[in-house]
């Protein structure tokens, strides 16, 4: 293995890991507070990819505006999704809340995908690189400005989320709900408002991730399917409900995938990745950073 390969792997790891992290971190946020696996997160990626295409290609506006629009639209959609598919089930007994919301959020995702299919048709919309050029980091290892921007914005957003959770009133409230629901309510946290807002926030991050993934690949109604699966794998691999675990897992998975791609090619990179995930989860079912029997932000 040459130094060129090593640097190439590292660059791809940071880019892939950052986008994985951005899409998956919302899922962790939702699992931590609501104790559900939100299957509509993939459709937020899909919506984000279309918003990116619409704003940058159709309207010809700047990528910054695409990010802003994606944030606003997917925030609203995420809030709406919580209100129609999760909130009505809360406080009721006699069923498995986690399993039923798994299905109800998935149902919403299917609806979103078909609405997108109806509006935009099945064909992939090309979102040509909006940021052109790049830098040659090391003898033939290119880092396009587009990849660089995506990685930096993703990292910046995750850092902002961290600060929000650590420093602000509502950020503390989200963590409080994740750590002890009864105590948070005794402090006066209006959980029935906090839940939809948390899902809105998480969806907005996935939506921005969607702008990036759309620009890296395409915008189309199925654009959220693979990211949803990957996000699920990242959050379970990292330990459900653990934010540091999610980041750790996102970059680990990015690293494994990038290494396998460079060393053995794309055909084998996914089988190798999933083989390693299988092995890790058999040895450590609670994930990399999860604590057995509990999951907290």
């Amino acid at each position: 293995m040459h130094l060129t390969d090593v640097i190439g792997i590292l660059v791809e790891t940071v880019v892939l890991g950052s986008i994985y992290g951005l899409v998956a971190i919302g899922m962790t946020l939702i699992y931590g507070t609501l104790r559900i696996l939100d299957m509509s997160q993939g459709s937020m990626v899909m919506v984000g990819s279309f918003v990116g295409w619409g704003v940058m290609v159709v309207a010809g506006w700047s990528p910054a505006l695409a990010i802003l629009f994606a944030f606003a639209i997917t925030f609203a959609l995420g809030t709406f999704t919580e209100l129609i598919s999760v909130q009505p089930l809360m406080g009721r007994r006699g069923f498995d809340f986690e399993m039923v919301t798994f299905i109800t959020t998935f149902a919403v995702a299917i609806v979103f995908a078909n609405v997108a299919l109806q509006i935009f048709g099945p064909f992939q919309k090309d979102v040509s690189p909006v940021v052109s050029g790049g830098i040659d980091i090391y003898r033939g290892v290119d880092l396009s400005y587009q990849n660089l921007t995506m990685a930096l914005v993703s990292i910046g957003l995750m850092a902002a989320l961290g600060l929000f959770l650590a420093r602000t009133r509502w950020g503390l409230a989200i963590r409080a709900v994740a750590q002890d629901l009864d105590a948070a309510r005794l402090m006066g946290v209006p959980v029935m408002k906090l839940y939809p807002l948390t899902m809105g926030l998480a969806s907005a991050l996935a939506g921005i991730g969607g702008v990036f993934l759309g620009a890296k690949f395409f915008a189309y109604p199925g654009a959220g399917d693979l990211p949803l699966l990957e996000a699920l794998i990242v959050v379970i691999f990292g330990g459900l409900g653990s934010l540091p675990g999610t980041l750790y897992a996102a970059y680990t998975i990015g690293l494994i995938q990038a290494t396998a791609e460079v060393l053995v090619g794309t055909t084998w990179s996914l089988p190798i990745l999933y083989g390693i995930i299988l092995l890790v989860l058999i040895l450590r079912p609670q994930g990399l950073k999860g604590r057995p029997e509990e999951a907290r932000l």
Partner: protein
Amino acid sequence: MSGGPRETANGAVSRRADAILEVRELWSGYGDTMVVRGLDLRVPPGQTVVIIGPNGHGKTTLLRTISGLIKPRRGEVWLAGDRVDGRSPEHLASLGMVHIPQGDLLFPDMTVEENLLMGAFLPSSWRTRRAALERVYGLIPGIRERAGQRARTLSGGERRLVGLGRGLMREASILLIDEPSLGLAPVAIERVYAAIRDIHDVGTTILLVEENFTHIGDVADIVHVVEMGSIVRTGPLEELSRDRTVVQTYLGAL
């Protein structure tokens, strides 16, 4: 001063708020098991009312029902003249009810200071959180030094103190405290009760439950003895603690 309901001409019930908290014929529990069974209680403003009684006789369930964590099966809860049974805990918190629960319910992966700040979550108290933080650090010894430490790493006594401090981060119309001495070493109990006495002395209305008489001497204005989910004896502490039946039946040998 009557706290009873008055029927008006059209049958509506109005009530003078001469008690901060009033509980009438309250039934509450878990599933089909009723733990609180037809309990009546009044807490006048500025007073500390203490409920004592053995474990498993409904003291914790009573407080959890009053603060909204459990919905009552039957009966009424009135807070400052408004009927509030069945309301959510967050709504009751916004009306000024503060419940310091048994087992602390701290946020384990937050620091001590973050836990305290959550006590000031409501908008009215969030603005003055820094001043409240200083006041609580001053009132409760030994927790300022732990400000940056995660709650899960504290000792039992420290947790109780932080739980108490968190409950003091905002103005309370009534403070519910659940067995503050439970599982603590004597020194820690003294610190907890010294803090409660300070709160009592500034005129806070308090409803406190304990298993026995041992520590409540300095704070109790009125004492109720609870048995099987309802109140069986009521009176000032001196009177009850002289009553041999009460002492022997409910409190063991002194």
